[in-house]
């Protein structure tokens, strides 16, 4: 039995059992309830429809743009803050308490306050997404610098490194794996909070907005298409980052 399960065709077939069962159940339920339950066939046609009229492409691009803009703002700031806090204790003492206090609030929980300040719209969404990207970048970068091994710093001492050389040749490269982990997390968080803020503000275009609209219109078929696209995109972006990470960290011994 175990040997059988190790073969990939067997695994593939067995792995398809549960999803197929689910679809079957769903189709069967759909014919019973008709209204809210969209059968799989309806989902496929909804996908075709959304692809044809360009709605899906527009929403996807809008969400991607928001998530990556937020990442582009939040992650570099987070990495810079984390590294500065890791290197210079006074910066840590100055910024640490404030940032750690702000971090405790669920990111989307900032939406009402920031919405009150800047109005519900693009700016508010971007701030929340940037904040979501900021914190994981900051925390991991900070840990990365703080965890640099003493023995490497001693080597810097032996060769009379200046502060700048120590940062450039030891602290930054040694922290790099965790910095990249932070950015990867930041990406995931930015992605989630983009969908979340879009759902909550429901303005303009975006996958979250499309979900919200589908919910109001009771269009399960559209909803499922959008959820599927969200999942697939999240997965793809993650894979992309994993590749990027591997090529940036060639110097690390191969991991499992």
């Amino acid at each position, binding site marked *: 039995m175990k040997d059988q399960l190790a073969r990939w065709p067997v695994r593939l077939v067995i792995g398809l059992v549960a999803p197929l069962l689910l679809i079957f159940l769903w189709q069967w339920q759909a014919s019973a309830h008709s209204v809210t339950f969209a059968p799989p066939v309806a989902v496929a046609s909804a996908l075709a429809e959304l692809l044809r009229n360009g709605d899906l492409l527009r929403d996807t691009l809008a969400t991607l743009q928001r998530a990556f803009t937020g990442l582009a703002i939040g992650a570099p700031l987070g990495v810079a803050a984390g590294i500065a806090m890791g290197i210079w204790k006074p910066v840590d003492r100055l910024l640490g308490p404030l940032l750690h206090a702000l971090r405790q609030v669920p990111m989307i929980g900032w939406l009402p306050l920031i919405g009150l300040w800047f109005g519900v719209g693009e700016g508010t969404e971007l701030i929340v997404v940037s904040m979501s990207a900021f914190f994981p970048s900051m925390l991991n970068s900070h840990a990365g610098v703080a965890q640099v091994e003493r023995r490497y710093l001693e080597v810097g001492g032996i*060769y009379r490194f200046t502060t700048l050389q120590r940062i450039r040749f030891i602290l930054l490269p*040694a922290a790099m794996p965790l910095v990249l982990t932070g950015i990867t997390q930041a990406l995931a968080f930015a992605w989630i909070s983009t969908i979340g803020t879009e759902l909550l503000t429901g303005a303009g275009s975006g996958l979250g907005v499309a979900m919200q609209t589908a919910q109001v219109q009771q269009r399960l078929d559209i909803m499922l298409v959008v959820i599927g696209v969200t999942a697939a995109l999240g997965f793809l972006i993650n894979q992309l980052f994993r590749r990027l990470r591997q090529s940036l960290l060639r110097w690390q011994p191969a991991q499992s």
Partner: protein
Amino acid sequence: MNPHPHAREDLAQAAASRGALTVSGLDKSFDIGGKPRKILDGINLNVRPGEFVSIVGASGCGKSTLLRLIAGLDTDYSGELRLDGDRIATTSLDRGIVFQDHRLFPWMTLEQNVELALLNTDTPKSRRAQIVADHIALVNLKGFEKAYPHQLSGGMAQRAAIARALVTEPKLLLLDEPLGALDALTRVHVQNELQRIWMAQRSTMVMVTHDVEEALYLGDRVIVMSPNPGRIRRIVEVDLPHPRDRRAPLLHRLKDEILAELTSGADAAESADNLVHLPSREAR
């Protein structure tokens, strides 16, 4: 004069003329649980320029601490530590060190690691690549310049660390159990390499080890230390020219002597306490 002066010979002559280490009345204590505990007690030692000195002793005799003090990694001591008459107050490019763990930066290639040591020397940039290549060749690692440390075997990484330590042409090279983490066969191989390198460089070397055979094979003199607190117990002259033959009877006689010294006397009483008792057996 030779129209094509061999760089290695110049270097050897220059190094041989310097690198006299003087240790006198050196004391060192650590705070352990709020109480100061003496680690090194009244160490006196003169190392001649170009000499290879081995230090052996049981773990905890302070031999690695002594080396860290000479390197300038720890500057909190009382007594005198001088290299060519200058008091040691911090690290310096005059003193190289090789640690037990190679401490090559994992994010740099072998070549980059070695070149990094030249960062703060006044070696002209144009000559650095050549000097790095020479030293990589010296430790027999030609062809591995672009390898990352994790791609090197333990022995290769340790030789690379030796190349990095030598590239600044230090007057004094400190070796802190440099072969301690290697397997027995690799160790013999790197010992031979180390002897060859020292004969080529003729810079002063001080090596800490717990392997008496290794200490005798490489050292002009072997310093035997005893623990609690760390003291010099005996200094053994090894009157054999280099390169040496491992089978030399003198080496074996001295080895037996030193081992007897290390495992007898004051230590014996202590090691009796450390014996594992098997109460259940004794009760029967």
